């Protein structure tokens, strides 16, 4: 009974989580559409940037989601590594969050380039932030590849955690080294588009705020979906393992009698083993027990056929 209760409780919680995810998804869709509508049609063009300012409602929120995603990933990696909070759920969360993070890093780079081309006159510049973001992108692609490697869930989780840690330690080092590199040669003149010269009007501020809300909701929705998928994959693996164990046990009973029959039919004769036992002969030394060759080619193949036949 209690087991049943527990099961219903789990499935209830599952259902509730599902419903919440759907609600978040719908809200994300609505707010995204609203952001696009406000951004494209309602807000005025900027004094200096003209229509280009409309990218303001997309690019910073995407970059913000990217930071949140990696933050969540790093925190859950730490929680997994910490022995007291070690739980495969944190590993799944770290994986799901990095997947979303990589997606949004790609989007950040693309939207930034699109914005950069008309404003700075170049698609790309070796600015610390840009360079770090690009390296972050490839580093976490590697991390995701590492996560795909087969292995037991615990082994996989531990391996991924170390991989994630390596990547994360690298981020500040990359950032500061590129910053110093640049500051030695030229002042970072470009970037920081959110603040600075752009003066934000009332409707623009609201739209930007809505953009942040919309993309954060989208992040939560995607994260929840990927997390659930990862969990289902684990459940699937566990169930198929259970099945495999049962199958293997069946194989055991069938295979054993087949093997025994084959051995008793074509294997060594009992008396041979009894008489020539090395154990007994070892004392009387010198004599080497010689065995009749059961294993002529012909005999072997019959034996093999027999075993196969019995198993099938």
């Amino acid at each position, binding site marked *: 009974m209690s087991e049943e209760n527990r099961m219903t409780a789990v499935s209830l919680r599952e259902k509730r989580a599902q419903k919440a995810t759907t609600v978040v998804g719908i809200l994300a869709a609505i707010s995204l559409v609203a952001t696009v509508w406000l951004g494209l049609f309602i807000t005025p063009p900027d004094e200096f940037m003209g229509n280009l300012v409309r990218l303001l409602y997309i690019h910073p929120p995407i970059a913000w989601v990217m930071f949140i995603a990696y933050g969540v990933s790093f925190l859950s990696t730490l929680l997994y590594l910490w022995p007291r909070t070690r739980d495969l759920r944190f590993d799944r969360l770290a994986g799901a969050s990095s997947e979303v993070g990589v997606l949004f890093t790609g989007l950040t780079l693309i939207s930034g380039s699109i914005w950069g081309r008309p404003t700075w006159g170049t698609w790309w510049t070796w600015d610390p932030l840009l360079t770090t973001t690009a*390296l972050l992108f*490839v*580093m976490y*692609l*590697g991390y995701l*590849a*590492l996560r795909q*490697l087969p*292995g037991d869930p615990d*082994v996989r989780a*531990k*391996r991924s955690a*170390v*991989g994630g*840690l*390596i*990547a994360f*330690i*690298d981020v500040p*080092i*990359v950032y*500061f*080294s*590129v910053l*110093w*590199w640049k500051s*030695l040669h030229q002042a970072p003149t470009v970037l920081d588009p959110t603040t600075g010269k752009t003066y934000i009007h009332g409707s623009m501020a609201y739209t930007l705020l809505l953009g942040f809300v919309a993309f954060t909701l989208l992040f939560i929705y995607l994260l929840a979906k990927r997390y659930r998928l990862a969990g289902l994959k684990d459940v699937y693996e566990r169930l198929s393992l259970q099945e495999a164990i049962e199958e293997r046990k069946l194989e055991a009973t069938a295979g054993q009698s087949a093997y025994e029959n084959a051995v008793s039919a074509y294997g060594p004769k009992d008396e041979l083993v009894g008489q020539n036992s090395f154990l007994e002969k070892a004392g009387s030394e010198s004599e080497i027990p010689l065995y009749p060759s059961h294993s002529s080619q012909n005999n072997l193949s019959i034996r093999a056929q027999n075993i196969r036949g019995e198993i099938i």
Partner: protein
Amino acid sequence: MWRDAFLIMQKDLNIELKSKVVFNQVIPFGLVVILLFGLAIGKFDSSSLSTVGGNLSDAGLLKDASAGLFWMAVTLSAVIGVQRSFAIETQDQARDALRLSALDPAGIFLGKAGALLVELAVLESVLALCAIFLFGMQIAVFWLFLAASCLATIALSAVGVIYGALASGARTRETLLPLLFFPVIAPVLLSATKACEAAIVGQPSSGMIWIEVLAVFSLCYIALGVAAFGSLLEE
């Protein structure tokens, strides 16, 4: 831990002495890379040929980029060195032997990194000579160059051995290792290049910050390797 590290290092270097794979394959690969860089970005200005007895060098761009190209060649060869270092362990399932040996994993990490360090140091001295002769690289402040090289080599071997172990359990290790290794090693490449440029230009003060970056990087990854190598080997 230190005794185990020494044993593993001795074993790896012994294998290298016997098999000479790094010497016969990895170092020549580095030379090939250096030559290819020369072909790819070397500019041959025929007008400079006319100045008889004057400067015949056609390596202007190469000379400017020599520090970067040198470190790029080292990094590319290093990944092959890492692969070799773990090919030793995966042949005949010796990796299992390492696990069964009941050696301290931290010792195994330090030993393998130490052996790789020695191999890379030899590689670097050969490639540096090539860069000096082929690219016209001139080092004004030698100690800075040496310090940067030492620290960068430590960083390369530490990260290399961690990722080598991480990837060595996978069937796709040959393709996975470079993808993991290169992005993480980016700050080492940058810092080593900038420090060496400072050494070439003769401004040790501007190189110091890079020495610090390299030192921090090395320390971080050595600590990580010592702490986490056990769980990487155990798959």
